[in-house]
């Protein structure tokens, strides 16, 4: 039996009796089409080319593995930032804990409301970038999300918005299985910043689709929750127009399994896309960044910067691809993924890929994996800095190179301060 047939059969069995949520006809047809994609492709299997390094079974199983709720005792991330708060508890929108859904320069609605409306602009975006992002590499968990998500946020940006919108994902039930699907549609020349933080659920499947048209600017900063046993499969799909900017950054500390996929298509000339991430894993920790950037216009820039600190048997994965289409001349593609292995038990698996069909391009990629620099460590210690503090200083410096990719200094400071605190707490 071929792998595909095997997957299709397993998926059909898993989805037996599952139907898409009730909604208006436009969304029902989108959900049905997404469900058909799931059934056709089958859910991920460990023998799939892009699932070799990260085991998908706990993400595709009927029920989530329970994850105890973790109380860090610290103030929530981004607490010091003025923002519009949108709270989800175990994947369900909580109006009481959220701010009023309104703001200057944008409209914001719940997917659960939007899905009941007979006519809504979201029909042209919901599930559309996800569907397009299935080619050439399938992302069945994202299709499953499009088919089954009942909640999420739908935003239409019509102006330059300075106050960020912040999704806060609380986790209270150790058996929760959350699926959220967000959509952001921007008008030309607008700007918007989206923040996300929190563990969300025992198992979390999220899709974010962003349409960034000409001259628009989208920023995204995310802190994934620290609950040790949480699992997450996140997907970001974006289309970039002419002279648009898309920048995203994710920090991940703890979490037994994280798969962050980012699929970007640069369709207008002179667009800029930056994708960055920093993660710190200790012990039972598997973190996977899978990025696919397609250059389909002239003079675009894409930049990937990923840093991973791993210890006590933690695993880091990076699968990053840059595809340059024949007419995407003057492409500037940069990709860097580095890991700092603090012991011999930890591992970093990297699969950088460049596929280039244009001739006038500058693409580079570098993937490194190394231990802490012994010379530097000795130098610090010889000045009186104890070994653990010296190690943390050097570790933080390593991570800072990714954090620096965040354009907003206050947000970058939030992340750096937290990372510093987490490293320090670990020292005891």
């Amino acid at each position, binding site marked *: 039996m071929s792998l595909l047939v095997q997957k299709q059969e397993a998926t059909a069995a898993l989805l037996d009796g599952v139907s898409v949520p009730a909604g208006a006809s436009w969304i029902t047809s989108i959900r049905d089409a997404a469900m058909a994609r799931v059934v056709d492709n089958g859910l991920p299997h460990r023998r799939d080319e892009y699932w070799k390094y990260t085991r998908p079974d706990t993400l595709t199983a009927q029920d989530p593995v329970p994850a105890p709720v973790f109380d860090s005792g610290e103030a929530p991330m981004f607490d010091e930032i003025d923002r519009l708060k949108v709270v989800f508890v175990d994947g369900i929108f909580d109006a009481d804990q959220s701010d009023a859904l309104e703001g200057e320069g944008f409209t914001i609605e719940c997917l659960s409301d939007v899905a009941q409306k007979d006519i809504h602009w979201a029909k042209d975006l919901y599930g559309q970038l996800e569907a397009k992002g299935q080619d050439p590499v399938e992302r069945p968990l994202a299709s499953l999300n499009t088919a089954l998500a009942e909640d999420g946020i739908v935003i239409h940006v019509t102006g330059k918005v300075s106050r960020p919108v912040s999704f806060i994902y609380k986790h209270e039930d150790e058996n929760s299985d959350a699926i959220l699907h967000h959509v952001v549609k921007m008008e030309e020349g607008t700007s918007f910043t989206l923040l996300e933080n929190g563990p969300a659920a025992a198992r979390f499947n999220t899709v974010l689709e962003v349409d960034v048209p000409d001259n628009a600017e989208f920023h995204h900063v995310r802190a994934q929750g620290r609950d040790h046993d949480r699992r997450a499969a996140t997907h970001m799909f974006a289309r970039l127009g002419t002279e648009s900017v898309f920048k995203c950054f994710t920090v991940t500390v703890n979490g037994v399994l994280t798969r962050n996929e980012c699929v970007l298509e640069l369709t207008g000339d002179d667009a800029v896309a930056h994708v960055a991430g920093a993660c710190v894993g200790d012990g039972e920790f598997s973190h996977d960044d899978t990025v696919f950037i397609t250059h389909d216009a002239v003079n675009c820039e894409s930049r990937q910067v990923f840093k991973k600190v791993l210890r006590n048997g933690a695993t880091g994965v990076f699968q990053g691809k840059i595809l340059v289409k024949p007419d995407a001349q003057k492409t500037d593609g940069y990709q860097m993924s580095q890991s700092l292995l603090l012991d011999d038990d930890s591992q970093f698996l990297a699969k950088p890929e460049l596929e280039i069909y244009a001739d006038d391009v500058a693409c580079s990629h570098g993937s490194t994996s190394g231990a802490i620099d012994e010379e530097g460590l*000795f*130098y610090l*210690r*010889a000045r*009186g*800095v*104890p*070994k653990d503090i010296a190690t943390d*200083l050097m570790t933080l*410096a390593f991570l800072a190179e990714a954090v620096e990719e965040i354009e907003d200094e206050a947000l970058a400071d939030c992340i750096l301060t937290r990372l510093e605190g987490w490293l320090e707490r670990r020292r005891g």
Partner: protein
Amino acid sequence: MLEIKGLKVKLEDEDKQILKGVDLKVEAGKVHAIMGPNGSGKSTLSYVLSGRDGYEVTDGEATLDGEDLLDMEPEERAAEGLFLAFQYPVEIPGVSNMTFLRTAVNAQRKARDEEELSATDFLKDIRAKAKTLKIDADMLKRPVNMGFSGGEKKRNEILQMAMLEPKMCILDETDSGLDVDAMKLVSEGVNALRDEGRGFLVITHYQRLLDHIKPDVVHIMADGRIVKTGGPELALEVENNGYADILAETA
């Protein structure tokens, strides 16, 4: 202050003896110089005293004010007051010079049960000391030694020494790679720290540095041993005749 007796050291991974019985005593308030051909073991001695990995002490002892140095972690030796100005200062990406020094100063204070220096006091102190060494604000902000010229690195070593105020200072070829002006800055920095309570061990090839930092005692090291000890005139002899005569007479 610093007392080394019969110190024998080999490489940890190799069957290679480098120090073959070193005896040396540096008193408080004195400057001792060590000269000697390349490969004679001068840097090895400074590394072993400061606790670098890769060496194995097979015999002998080294104490600082009676405390067994060889038994301590590098950071404990530093907190005890030992300082090594590295022959090759290390670059540390991403860690600013300022953060590095503040962390070091406060870690040492903490280890000695002293109060940490406030941010303002620290800033005042470092600005004043950096100024005399012609180290500008930009160099303080930059990552430790990254992109520094040879001379800047050496001045940075002296700045660290000035901030940490150690009681026993070892300078390993701090003069190499310095032009005349930098040499003057560095030696003024060292001389400013000369004090009754402080000992210096200055490793150098050149009389030039010793013109500025006048040593009380000069030792010649060859093949892992101190082969001759004398006054400042010994350095002049090396300057004029090289090591050949001395080595021949002690062989």
